[in-house]
């Protein structure tokens, strides 16, 4: 249902904009003949509903059209670019969780301790470092100055996994920074609330160690809002990925999109945006399922 609404949205978005897209594609100096040709090619002379049905039917068959620029099928190009985003987002989220969970546990265990204050203050800092702000200093520090990681370049993960990881680490960290802050803050708040619960006191009265109480009893009931946040966060991650790919020259969907915009590759932009939007909806759908797995109360409600 939502996918359907989005498909209408993507379609309308690009059709309701003022002006003939053919002009946008060809640029201001286009001859009327060329405009007419492109208009026919794109089917722009037909009624809007017809255009939409044609487009949607093709999209459902995996046919997102042919790039006006490269004359390659858009779906093929996207097929090459999408794994880059997938890897980038997954790696960045792994990094974010690897940092945020231990930080939140440490902070929640000893509230108002020095570590708690340091973590909480630095979470404000991380929250204020979007990809385009942290990316440049990061490149400067680790790539330009000490040459630990390359600043640009991409090798597909299936050809040379090690090189690929080496190249992906800096971009992933750039993308992860904001997520760390969000997850840390949510998890810390929820952990503190959970630790006040009586079942935690009962777990302690069983003689379980602090560690066992934390990992076996407190952590899982505290992860619900982080899970929800992760799903919603994917939306801004996709946006952040555009910036990161542009910054590090990674041939992902973001770069495809930005280049498509620069070169007014109308069909490509439409395809990329539709794919990303559908991916976002799917992630939220998956999160919903995962939610049911983690919380038995929701499962039966």
């Amino acid at each position, binding site marked *: 249902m939502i996918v359907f609404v989005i498909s209408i949205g993507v379609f309308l978005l690009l059709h309701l904009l003022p002006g003939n897209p053919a002009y946008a594609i060809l640029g201001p100096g286009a001859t009327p003949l060329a405009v007419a040709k492109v208009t026919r090619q794109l089917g722009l002379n037909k009624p809007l509903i017809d255009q939409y049905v044609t487009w949607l039917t093709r999209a459902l068959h995996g046919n997102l059209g042919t790039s006006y620029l490269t004359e390659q099928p858009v779906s093929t190009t996207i097929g090459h670019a999408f794994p880059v985003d997938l890897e980038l987002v997954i790696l960045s989220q792994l990094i974010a969780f690897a940092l945020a969970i231990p930080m939140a546990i440490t902070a929640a265990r000893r509230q108002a301790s020095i570590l708690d204050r340091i973590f909480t203050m630095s979470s404000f800092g991380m929250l204020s470092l979007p990809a385009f702000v942290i990316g440049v200093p990061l490149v400067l520090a680790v790539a330009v100055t000490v040459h630990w990681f390359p600043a640009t370049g991409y090798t597909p993960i299936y050809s040379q996994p090690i090189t690929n990881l080496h190249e992906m680490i800096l971009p992933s960290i750039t993308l992860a920074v904001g997520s760390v802050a969000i997850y840390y803050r949510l998890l810390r708040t929820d952990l503190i609330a959970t630790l*006040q*619960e*009586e*079942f935690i*006191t*009962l*777990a*302690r*009265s*069983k*003689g*379980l*160690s602090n560690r*066992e109480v934390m990992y*076996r*009893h407190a952590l*899982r*009931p505290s992860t619900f809002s982080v899970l929800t946040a992760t799903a919603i966060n994917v939306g801004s991650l996709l946006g952040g990925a555009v910036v990161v790919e542009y910054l590090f020259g990674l041939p992902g969907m973001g770069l495809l999109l930005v280049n498509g915009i620069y070169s007014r590759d109308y069909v490509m932009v439409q395809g990329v945006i539709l794919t990303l939007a559908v991916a976002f909806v799917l992630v939220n759908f998956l999160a919903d399922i995962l939610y049911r797995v*983690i*919380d*038995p*109360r929701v499962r*039966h409600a």
Partner: protein
Amino acid sequence: MKARAATSFGEDATSSAPLLRVRSLTTSYVGERGSLRVVDDVSFSLEGGKVLSVVGESGSGKTALCRSIMRLFPTSKVHVDGQVIFDDQQLLELDDLEMSELWGTRIAMVFQDPMSSLNPVMRVGNQVAEGPRRRLHMARSAAKERAISALKSAGIADAKQRYSRYPHELSGGLRQRVAIAIAIANGPKLILADEPTTGLDVTVQAQILSLVNQLSHSAGIAVIMVTHDLAVAASASDDIAVMYAGRVVEIGPAREVIGHPRMRYTEALLLASPRLYQTPHARLNAIAGRPPDPLDLGPGCAFSPRCPHADSRCFEERPELTASSEDQRHLYACWHPASAALDEFAKLAVK
């Protein structure tokens, strides 16, 4: 089933010294506005296989007493003085690690609200098995068997099926039975039950109380049961201690305390308890006034401002616990003790 419970969850308490001795226990919460004494100079003994009910109204310190014996507080800003001797061990002298070794294996707790004291996202069976598995280092299958038999002892008939349920799938009574199963799983000698029946309806309440009694007597477990409800205390305990403003004001065999209350506060509680007594004129005798502010106690009897029998002595001098002339084990702290037996009004059979 009774016999099995006795063999698997407890040893006979045959030693001569009482299992638990509490001497001059005093507990203070240390807060920003000074320290707040919530348990004040409390002493008593309890033998294995006996149930002691601690009765008092909200804020009388009965829960804090429980937690002091267990040394289980949500914060570290608590100061406990006095002596707690459990099984010849000075509990207050143990370090945190030694104390937590006793938790679950020798001393266990049952909480007021089984909905909030059971982990909502963990199968109940695993919550019961966790104790044997983590603390007695049993193998997974042995721990599971142990858990199932604990659930059975707690009166859950189809324990195997219930094992893999989540708390929200069980009724209130069943949840409290699970909580009791958790407490007895490792065969403790002392169970501290904090208002174990408060949230339950009256029928279920009676079942849980009889279960607690049966477990206690058959397995030789000493039980301290905290309650605000004298009817509960009367129907399900061997001894009763009445607390007021952090102090024990009357303590003795249940029959004596209910039948011949001496302390005026106990008497007032009984007269205000419709489930225990029918007053001659069918009128409930509410206790006038409000519970005392623990930060602002006078030198005298804490109950004196609300007591119809109080005189100037009551306000100036605090009465000590003294033995009743009829029963040496019955102690009360009152300058003007009641003398008339309330037996004639008794509605419920007292053990």
